[in-house]
């Protein structure tokens, strides 16, 4: 594995493989990937499966977090009740929850001895998703809540005045706040895909001997490379991670549209 990851990533970067991979998924084969694939098929499988695990775990976690967070943000944003300030403070505190602590808590939960032990989740992607949901949900909730509450009261009043039901007002508010909500989702994704503390503990950084990743993500692979003194490979993987996040950000913002 020493040789394979080093040459692989460095060659990959040299050939602009990152774009190659993403486009290749859509059916287009770029020169870069073709070269890498023919020269170093084994290493290519290794890095691709790591990227795939990273994306699968973090995107699933962010999707689930969003499904949980948005209704909560709406509910809190649209209602007034005693103790609301405390709940908002709790959510904001959750944004800074250390990932390694979340990892430990999830580890205790999914361990064979823990309450979820019977589901045999330890060292699986599912356990990693659970911990990333816990990490990402407060971020998405907090930022979305701020976005929703910052929609001017005048807009809501106008919607009411125009004869809108409560649902109409909610939809108008979401529409007005969509940019902020998207920012929240992206911040949640950033938190999920870049954290190493919890996925290392609950996932175990496992790759099969043939080079397919089981629970190895880009971040845990970086940690492994650094531990083995291969700093250049570690940095190269860091660049891959950064490029992925940049790409996803670009895609989401384009699809979501800018401010209107």
């Amino acid at each position, binding site marked *: 594995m020493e040789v394979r990851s080093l040459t692989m990533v460095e060659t990959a970067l040299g050939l602009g493989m990152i774009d190659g991979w993403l486009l290749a998924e859509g059916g287009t084969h770029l020169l870069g990937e073709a070269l890498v694939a023919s020269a170093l098929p084994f290493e290519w499988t290794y890095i691709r499966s790591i990227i795939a695990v990273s994306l699968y775990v973090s995107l699933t976690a962010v999707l*689930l977090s969003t499904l949980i967070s948005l209704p909560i943000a709406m509910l809190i944003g649209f209602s007034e009740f005693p103790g609301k300030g405390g709940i908002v403070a709790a959510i904001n505190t959750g944004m800074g929850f250390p990932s390694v602590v979340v990892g430990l808590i999830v580890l205790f939960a999914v*361990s*064979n001895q823990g309450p979820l032990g*019977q589901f045999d989740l330890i060292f699986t992607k599912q356990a990693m998703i659970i911990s990333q949901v816990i990490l990402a949900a407060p971020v998405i909730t907090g930022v979305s809540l701020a976005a929703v509450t910052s929609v001017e009261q005048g807009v809501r009043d106008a919607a009411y005045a125009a004869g809108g039901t409560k649902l109409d007002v909610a939809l108008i508010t979401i529409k007005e706040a969509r940019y902020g909500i998207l920012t929240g989702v992206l911040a949640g994704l950033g938190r999920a895909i870049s954290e190493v503390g919890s996925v290392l503990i609950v996932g*175990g950084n496992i790759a*099969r*001997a*043939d080079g397919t990743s089981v629970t190895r993500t880009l971040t845990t692979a970086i940690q492994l490379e650094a*531990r*083995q003194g291969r700093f250049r490979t570690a940095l190269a993987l860091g660049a891959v991670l950064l490029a992925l996040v940049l790409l996803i950000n670009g895609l989401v913002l384009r699809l979501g549209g800018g401010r209107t």
Partner: protein
Amino acid sequence: MIQRREFLGVLAGGATLAVAGCAGDDSTGPAAVTDETLTLTTTTSTYDTGLLDEVNAAFTDEFGAAVEAVAQGTGAALETARNGDSDVVMVHARSLEDEFLREGYGVNRRDLMFNDFVVVGPPSDPAGINGMDSVTEAFRRIAETESPFISRGDNSGTHTKELTIWEEAGIEPGGEWYSETGTGMGEALNQANLSGAYTLSDRGTFISRSDANLDIHVQGPIKGGPELLANPYGIIAVNPAVHENVNYDLAMAYIGFLTSPQGQRIIENYTVDGNQLFFPRALSEEPDFQQYVPEGWRSDR
């Protein structure tokens, strides 16, 4: 860790994962032997040297079952096994292994292989320990000269050995020159390299890190050094009577494979840059019965 999955697969089908709230690719449903997965917790030294990839690939070729190796360090690897979260452990701290056996968590321990520890440090050798025959004397000199020393500090096999050496040297290490990093061997070597410090390393990890600007100052028994620096690895199955979910059959197949002539040959033939890192120890015309039981155990008790 498969039997339970099968059981749930039959009873609940996909409900297991649905309850957990996320889809996955883990196979439910009764699995053939070849679909089974063995979870191994082990030390960073066996993984980072690349040895595990070699033996696990051979095991998968032979048995069709995949091995998921989690590199944690001896203390953490045994703790994970205590919780029933792994099927087999491959570690290198006999005192911790014996504790694990005595508590009933492990069965059928086998000697697997050995290499040795070496004391490494900056080529300038500020404590003047180069070429010493006694590692306790070398540690005393490091402490007397207050030369920087990096300790793993992570309850790993290497850390356990280091503490044993300090104890035998009659020194309680502490002070500004002594730093505990709480990290893996590779990270400790990184730090020793960057800060010009001494550290204790297993020979395998040190050899596989040819980039480090560190020299071996005190050799282990492989190169004629003191026996105190011996580094034997053991492999232990998790007791299926304590944790019914562990895949005991596969764990024993794995132990059997690694301690077989074939497995031992793979270990013997594994080299990095032409250096042999691990020396097989499972096969002998006169087997050491001590390997099966905690040290000092006698049947007439």
